[in-house]
């Protein structure tokens, strides 16, 4: 399975799912947690699922009783969680370095 390309939306989704790794997540909740619009979120979820980082399943409810259709739930796989941790950590490290270092002065490079 191909590795997903690490874009900012992919990292945001991975970080949001890692933050609550034991829970199952659904679309609107992930939109709220990541700030991503629906048009960006769903393609990211499909790419992560294709890469084997995420698994999805239908919510087990009776739609008549609940008064709404069953949601699609997404959860990180073990492999996805391990990979996502590494990628998010690497990204955070990079950001910390960038934020902590002064900009190079002219003539000092």
């Amino acid at each position, binding site marked *: 399975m191909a590795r997903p390309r690490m874009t900012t939306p992919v990292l945001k989704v991975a970080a949001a799912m890692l933050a609550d790794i034991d829970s199952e997540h659904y679309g609107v909740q992930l939109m709220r947690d990541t700030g991503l619009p629906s048009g960006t979120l769903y*393609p990211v979820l499909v790419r992560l699922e294709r890469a084997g980082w995420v698994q999805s399943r239908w919510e087990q409810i009776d739609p008549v009783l609940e008064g709404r259709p069953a949601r*699609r739930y997404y959860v990180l796989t073990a492999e996805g969680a391990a990979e996502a941790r590494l990628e998010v950590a690497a990204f955070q490290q990079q950001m910390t370095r960038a934020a902590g270092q002064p900009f190079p002065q002219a003539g000092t490079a």
Partner: protein
Amino acid sequence: MTGPSPVERLAAGLLTRAARRWPDDLAEVMLESWIAELATMRGTPVRMLRFAGSILVAPPVEEEGADPVTWGSRASSAARTGTAALLTVLVAATLFNGVHLALHHGGPLLSAAGETVLVIALLTVSALLMAGAAARWAPRRRVRATLATGVAAYAFLLAGNEVAVMPFMGWPDIAPAVVTWTAIAALTTVAAGRLARTGRHRLAGAVAVLGGLLSVVAGTAAGALHAAAVLGIPAATAPAWLPLALLPGAAARPGFDVLPANAAAMAGPLLLCTVFLTTATVRAVRSAGSARPVASRRAGATARVPRRIDPVIRRADPAIMAGAITAGVVLLLADLLPRLSPAAEHTASRLADNSAVFGFGFLASPAARIALAFALALLAAHHATRPSPAS
């Protein structure tokens, strides 16, 4: 439990439309999951529409193994479509004006029948050239190409009348002509495509040809209605306006001296654009018939979307070089030629004042020359990044 509100139904409709663009194996599951999320937003119509609208306008996920469709790739595709449409209109107008010029110079030496034969022969050659161009550079998304050609034709005809030598060539004349032509041509393309997908390839080809013909006849009539009303020509003669506009000898008929000449300026380029688009549709219908009986929508998309560019070319150096050189050469020639040669200066001024040919008045404006150079640069850049057939 109450039924869905009108807003929820609208949002569900938008999501259904969006799902059609997703890969076949995902479309159904994704649509169900979106509808489920939509149901939890009841009572918040703006949120529902924002949720559905975002999915509708954002690029869908790519087919598995294909390059992602991004906003950047969408912009690049739109630029290619726009450039191709603009160049189609420019080539069609150039060819038609060539026919007009040949008649202007050769007409006095020929009899009335000879003039008609000359025009028919030259129009046939022009149509064959447009058909050949369609065989070589057929647009992949034909409905979009048709709409873009309509926009380009409108801009060309409106901007081309900078020096208003034609009495009926304002927006009340051009807009009905181009809108009618575009609407019929686009509907024809959609209908031919649908028939081809259901395996009725012969019927699809016939619809493409007849619809193309109808689009030019109706477009010409719609564009000349205003002129006919002012000139007191009965609207019932509208079906004859296209042949009268294209063939010589119309001036001999009383009352028909202004209308056909005016209509020809629109009908000629539109006719040749129609030949280009109809050829592309007929070829697509035929290849669909020979390649796969009733192929799935996404099987076609698989061949369409993942156009991988060679990693070396991805650096875009050849594209940038080709585009920059083309734009530079075009602008340099446009600026230098008139200064170096009085004949070239004379030709350029006659091009711009609409006295010899119609529609190129926009070339008088430096901004339009830059836009044309940019369009040609984009085309050159596109060809520089085109993968070789072997790859």
